[in-house]
C-alpha cells in the first residue's frame, strides 16, 4: 500500500478539521486534492507526514507508519517556501538533503538542470517566489521518491515553469512515483490526472475518476427554439448557452440520436463543439450548484 489512511480525524481545540478521511492507493498514480480554502487539504498533508498529530485513525505511507522518520527516504513533501533558511544558499539546502538521504552530491546538478535552476549559489532570501518553488521541487525529487506530496506547488510559477513542473510530475509518474498534489489550478489538474479527491469541511466529498469519454456537446442549430421544444417533449436533459447553442451531456443523449432528431424535424445543424467535463465543471457542481439542468 502506497497510501493507506483509515478514518483519519484531527481536531483543533473543539473544532474537527478532518472528519474521518479514508484514502487507499496501492498503485502508482497522480491524485489531486481539490477543495475550497479551509477545507483541510494542507492539514491532511501535514497529518500524513506527522507534522501535525492526529486524534483518531491510522496513516501508513509506503507500507510504514507515518510517524517513522525512515518513511522520508521514500516519501518527499514539497511544502510552503517558509521552510527554507534565508541566509543559506540553494546549494546548501540540496547538500543537506543529499547528506541526510545519503545521496551522492553529484545528483544535485542533473536535478537542477531538470527543474531549471541556475542560481544555486545565491542566498535563498534573494529568491523570488517562483525560484523558491523550483528549489523546493528540486529538494523533493532529488531522492527519487516513491511517494511525492505537493502542497500548492504551482503558486508563483510562470506559465513556462508550470509546464516544466507538469512535465516533471508526469515523468515521475511514468517512472513509478505516486503523486498527491493539492492545488487550486484546476486546468493543470485536468492536464495531470484523472483521479481527484474533492474535499470540503474536512471530509472527502467525492473521489472522482473523471470519465474522459464523458463528452459534453454544444451544438449550434438553425432553429434553437424548435430544438428546445422537441427535446423537452422527449424529456431529455439539456441547457441553452449564451450563444443559443444546445448543450447536453453524452450520458443524457447520444450525439447520433440528437442528429437524427434534428434531421427528422428539418432543423439544420450548423456547428458541433465537443467539450470534456473537467475538474472545474465538477468543482462548480459540487461546491456552487451550477450545471445539471
Amino acid at each position, binding site marked *: 500500500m502506497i497510501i493507506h489512511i483509515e478514518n483519519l480525524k484531527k481536531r483543533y481545540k473543539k473544532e474537527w478539521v478532518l472528519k474521518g478521511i479514508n484514502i487507499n492507493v496501492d498503485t502508482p498514480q497522480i491524485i489531486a486534492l481539490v477543495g475550497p480554502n479551509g477545507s483541510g487539504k494542507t492539514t491532511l498533508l*501535514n497529518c500524513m*507526514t*506527522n*507534522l*501535525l*498529530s492526529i486524534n483518531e485513525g491510522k496513516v501508513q505511507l509506503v507500507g510504514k507508519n507515518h510517524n517513522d*522518520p*525512515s*518513511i*522520508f*527516504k521514500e516519501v*518527499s*513533501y514539497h*511544502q*510552503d517556501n*517558509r*521552510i*527554507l*533558511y534565508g*541566509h*543559506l544558499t540553494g546549494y*546548501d*539546502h540540496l547538500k*543537506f*538533503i543529499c*547528506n*541526510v*538521504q545519503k545521496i551522492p552530491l553529484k545528483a544535485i546538478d542533473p536535478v537542477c538542470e531538470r527543474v531549471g535552476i541556475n542560481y544555486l549559489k545565491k542566498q535563498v532570501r534573494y529568491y523570488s517566489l517562483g525560484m523558491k518553488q523550483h528549489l523546493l521541487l528540486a529538494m523533493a525529487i532529488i531522492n527519487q521518491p516513491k511517494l511525492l506530496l505537493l502542497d500548492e506547488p504551482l503558486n508563483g510559477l510562470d506559465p513556462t515553469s508550470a509546464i516544466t513542473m507538469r512535465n516533471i510530475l508526469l515523468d515521475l509518474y511514468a517512472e513509478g512515483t505516486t503523486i498527491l498534489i493539492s492545488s487550486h489550478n484546476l486546468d493543470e489538474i485536468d492536464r495531470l490526472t484523472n483521479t481527484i479527491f474533492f474535499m470540503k469541511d474536512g471530509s472527502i466529498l467525492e473521489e472522482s475518476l473523471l470519465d474522459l469519454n464523458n463528452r459534453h456537446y454544444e451544438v449550434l442549430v438553425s432553429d434553437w427554439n424548435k430544438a428546445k421544444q422537441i427535446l423537452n417533449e422527449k424529456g431529455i436533459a439539456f441547457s441553452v448557452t449564451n450563444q443559443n447553442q444546445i448543450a447536453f451531456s453524452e450520458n443524457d443523449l447520444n450525439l447520433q440520436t440528437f442528429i437524427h432528431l434534428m434531421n427528422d424535424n428539418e432543423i439544420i445543424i450548423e456547428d458541433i463543439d465537443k467539450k470534456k467535463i473537467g475538474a472545474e465543471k465538477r468543482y462548480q457542481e459540487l461546491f456552487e450548484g451550477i450545471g445539471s439542468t
Partner: protein
Amino acid sequence: MMLTFELKKHIFNKKFFILSTLLIVCVLLLFSRNFVFQSYIPKEQLQEIDNYIKTSQKNGTQYEEVLKNEPNNEEIKQLQKLNYMMINILYDWRNTRSSNDWKSNLQLENDFLTVALQFKELGGDFPLSQTEMNRTITFNEKLLELNIKPEHENYSIALPNFLKNVIDLLMNFGAFILIILFIGDTLSSEYENRTANLLYTQPLNKANIINAKFITSIFVYLISVLLIIIITFITTYLFGKKGTFSYPVMIERNQSLDFISIGDYILQGMTIVTCLVLLLISLLLFFSLLVKHTLTTIFLVMVTFALGYMISLINWNILYWVNPFQYLLASDKILIQNEYVWYQGIPSALLITMIFYIINIVKIKSSRVV
C-alpha cells in the same frame, strides 16, 4: 551531517557576525575606558587621602574643644594622640603617593590603617569600617610579600587584571546574556519560521537535531570566549602592561581571609561559567520545545534562573550542593567561601544539564511543529 548543517546555519548568519563584532567592540571600549581612566586613578587616591586628612582634622578640632573643658579626660587624650599620629602618617603618605615608590605607599597605608583601627577601637569616629581596614591591611601585606605592584581593581590595563575584569562581567550575568543573544532562538525560531518542517520531513532521528543544536551552541560559546580572550591579549599587549597571573585575589574562606592567584580565579570563574552555560543551553532547548516561541522561551529561562538564584539565598547547606542557579552571580561564589567551596554545586549543575538533555531528546521525538 546535521552538525555541519547546524554550524553553517549559525556561523554564516549575519547575526553571528554582528554580535561577534559587537563583542570585540565592547572589549575594546572597556579597555579604552580603563586606559583613559589611568590618569584619574592617582587623582582619586590623592582625593581619598585628602578626605581622611580632613576627617582627622575635624576630629582633632573636636577633641581640642573637649579637652579645653575637661583637660583630664584620658580617653579623649588618647584619641587625640592617635589622631595626631594618623594625620602625620597621612601627610607622609600623601607625599609618597606622587612618587613611584609603591612599596612605601603600601607600607604607609598599612601604618595608617593600623593606627586607625586602634583609634576606632577606642571609640573614635572614622569613615572606614574595621572589616574594610583589616582587609586592606591584609591585602597590602600580601602584595608586599609577593613583591607585586598594586593594580586598580576596576581600571587596570595589566593583562591578568583586565582579563579578570572581563571575566567578572562574564561571570556576573554576562555569559548568560551572551548565550541568549547568540543562540537563544536556535530551536524556537525553527518552529516560528517553519523551517522545522524541513527537518521534520527528513529521514532523521530527531534526537540528532537536539545533539547538533547542543554541540553547535557549545561551539558558539567557545568561539565567543576565545574571541574575548584573544582581543584582551592583543589590546593589553599593544597598549597595556604585562602584569602577573600570580596577582593575589582576596577571598573569604571559613570566616577568615585567604588568597588565590588571579590565574586561579580566572580558571575557577571560567569553569563555573561554562557549567552554567551548559545548563542554560539545556534549558533553552527544553523551553523551546515546550512553547515554540522565542520571547516566551527566553522569559521562562530568565524566570527559572531568577527563581533558582533566589532559592540559593536561603542559608541552607544542602542547597550549595544541589542548586546550580547559585552560580548566576558566580564571582560571589569564589570570593566568599564560608560555608561552602566554590565547586560544590558543579556536579549538580552538570547532572541537571544531562537530565534536561535527555528530556529534550525524549520530548523532540514525540513533538510536532505546532
